[in-house]
């Protein structure tokens, strides 16, 4: 199954989804050299924003990847109120949308602790380094704690302004 992070980001951007990039791709943007196989975002879980996500993923056969029968991602008014996270599989990759980030909190708190990265195809909010470290420490899995070691090294390198030799 392909994983086209740029394609997913472009669609979210085009449909004005309110989101912050978190997780492994956020780490990649900060400079870590680990490979991740999904795109994690924290987003505002309002009906309006969820509908934007739905429109962004239109025609991509999005489904709830963790449900037994991979139920199609089709929002209802009830789901818009009751959903707290979305674990989606699409034709162009996995997109996990979280209402809260461990160690950080809600979307608004994640947004406060984010920085904007400008790419040729738009500007994207991503968790800042300290917030990403806090989030990974809060999750606490071995691979997250390993990533923290890299992130701390990069943070120190950024602070000292020392260029790689």
């Amino acid at each position, binding site marked *: 199954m392909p994983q086209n992070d740029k394609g997913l980001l472009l669609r979210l951007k085009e449909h004005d989804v309110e989101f912050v990039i978190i997780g492994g*791709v956020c780490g990649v*943007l*900060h*400079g870590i*050299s680990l490979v*991740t196989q999904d795109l994690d975002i924290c987003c505002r879980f309002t009906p309006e924003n969820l509908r934007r996500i739905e429109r962004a993923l239109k025609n991509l056969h999005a489904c709830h990847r963790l449900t037994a029968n991979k139920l199609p991602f089709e929002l209802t008014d009830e789901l818009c109120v009751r959903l707290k996270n979305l674990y989606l599989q699409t034709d162009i990759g996995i997109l996990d949308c979280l209402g809260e980030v461990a160690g950080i909190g809600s979307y608004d708190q994640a947004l406060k602790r984010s920085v904007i990265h400008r790419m040729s195809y738009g500007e994207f909010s991503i968790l800042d380094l300290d917030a990403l470290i806090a989030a990974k420490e809060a999750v606490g899995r071995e691979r997250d704690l390993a990533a923290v070691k890299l992130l701390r090294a*990069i*943070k120190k*390198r950024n602070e000292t302004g020392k260029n790689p*030799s």
Partner: protein
Amino acid sequence: MIDEATLAQMNERYVCPPDAEPAWREACEYGFDMSLVEDTLRLSPEERLERHQRALDMILELQEGCDSHAAK
């Protein structure tokens, strides 16, 4: 004439610089190839994402190859 330090760099794995910050040294000692991190930090965020995409594509292609081989 190649000096010893350059030759060592050619022959050996990444050597943590003696003046490296403790966090850098810890990540290095944990087993990360910090030369890759140094390379990545020279890139823009967009270039980092592109490099990551290429690496991921390669991994997924290899996984697919393994899966189809196992299915035979």
